């Protein structure tokens, strides 16, 4: 191939300055038409999705290679992080684990009680979801669209439409799935809308990404709406995409102009939309018929880490308080 090309170039060498094949204008017309056709078929007809998937898979090793320097740097930095810091961190994690274990015990009880109440009411199903842990590979190439690529894809049973969360709240939604990676649109992107509820009073609204400065808007709420600075927005779960009750954002600013029918409400996302690397991809909640759960077989809570509840219950639950752990 190269040899052939070489010969061709060699032959062309002398007159190349004047003879250059089809004129640039002809080439421009041809390739512009081709681009326009591609754009139309990609955005309107979605013919090219499988091609994009396979090409993206080919690109994956290159992507990993490009990520390697930062990965190595981070690993080295972690390796040389001081003993003290690790100990500190460990202690914090232990404390948090204890607090959460206690909360989880209560939650378990509540879940069982809830299931019983549901049965009494005759409600047939609860929503359950499962999750996959993933890591953000890189922030989107286009600085003006809020998208990230995560390192889990079709092969890890990720489907488009799944919600992506981290420890602090909702990050976004999976919009494109490739075999080994998938694209997540963040809640700050203009193209993403999610149904939310104000935690304080249960008021329902739809949150839209603002797109520019990492905020979320709550449009279409009347100027006299009962909302305050610092109110927490949680997912309402009525869309069947996001699990209900996940924290999304806090209200940062409310501007109600006299001449506008709607208040302008700016909210700040709570999840580390720009900073975290570890995320959780949560599947769409699906209805599961309630059996007769008992304490010995705890209801599996999708989001919570699978803490063996039985073991926790074997511990002396009452006397173990936070003070005690501080004293240790």
């Amino acid at each position: 191939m190269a040899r052939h090309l070489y010969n061709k170039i060699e032959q062309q060498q002398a007159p190349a300055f004047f003879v250059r094949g089809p004129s640039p204008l002809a080439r421009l017309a041809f390739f512009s038409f081709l681009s326009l056709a591609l754009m139309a078929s990609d955005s309107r007809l979605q013919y090219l999705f499988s091609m994009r998937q396979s090409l993206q898979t080919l690109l994956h090793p290159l992507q990993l290679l490009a990520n390697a320097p930062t990965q190595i740097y981070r690993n080295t930095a972690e390796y040389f992080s001081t003993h003290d810091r690790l100990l500190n961190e460990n202690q914090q994690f232990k404390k948090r684990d204890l607090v959460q274990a206690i909360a989880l015990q209560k939650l378990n009880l509540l879940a069982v009680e809830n299931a019983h109440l549901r049965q009494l009411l005759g409600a047939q199903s609860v929503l359950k979801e499962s999750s996959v842990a993933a890591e953000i590979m890189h922030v989107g190439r286009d600085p003006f669209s809020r998208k990230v690529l995560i390192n889990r894809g079709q092969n890890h049973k990720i489907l488009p439409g799944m919600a992506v969360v981290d420890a602090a709240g909702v990050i976004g939604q999976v919009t494109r799935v490739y075999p080994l990676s998938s694209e997540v649109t963040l809640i700050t992107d203009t193209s993403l809308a999610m149904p939310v509820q104000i935690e304080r009073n249960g008021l329902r609204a739809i949150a839209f990404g603002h797109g520019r400065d990492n905020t979320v808007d709550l449009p279409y709420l009347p100027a006299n709406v009962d909302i305050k600075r610092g109110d927490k927005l949680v997912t309402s779960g009525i869309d069947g995409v996001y699990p209900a009750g996940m924290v999304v954002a806090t209200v940062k600013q409310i501007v109600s102009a006299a001449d506008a029918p709607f208040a302008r409400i700016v909210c700040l996302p709570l999840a580390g939309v720009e900073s975290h690397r570890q995320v959780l991809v949560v599947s769409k909640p699906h209805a599961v018929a309630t059996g007769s759960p008992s304490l010995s077989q705890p209801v599996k809570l999708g989001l919570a880490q699978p803490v063996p509840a039985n073991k926790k219950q074997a511990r002396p639950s009452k006397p173990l308080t936070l003070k005690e752990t501080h004293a240790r």
Partner: protein
Amino acid sequence: MPVNKLKTMYFSVLLAFMSLLLPWSQAALVVRPDFMLLVLIFWLIRAPNLCNVGAAWMLGLLVDLAAGMVFGQYALAYTVTAFLAVTYQRRLVLFTGMQQLLYVFSLLMVAQLMLLIIKTFAGWQFSGWSYFLPSLSGVLLWWLAMGLGLNTGGRGRAN
């Protein structure tokens, strides 16, 4: 010599593509120059018999793929830019360093304007003048490369 040149070209394109794939974030992402387009313009000026409008189109598709955008956006922008670059390529021999910088800057701007037009058609909102920062950083990079002794053609180097 041409084969060597061809190899260098492929290598430089690969390098540009890798720097595109690097995990850029926050401020760096906003000012990051379009490496692919810079390399493309360089080869369009230096070796128009090897690298022409078609090559620009291919590279544009590659960038589209990497950026996860609709296929054809970057391809169209690069094609138009390459056409302009090739059309004025012969006149470029007479350009001094400063003139060449202006020329490269206008090419980069043309590419960005094309992208802006296409994106606007797709319903995207213009997000302020920082959108054009990559052109500025790109031309700075070109200037730096010239200062470091890269032969970018033109009169400045020939003398």
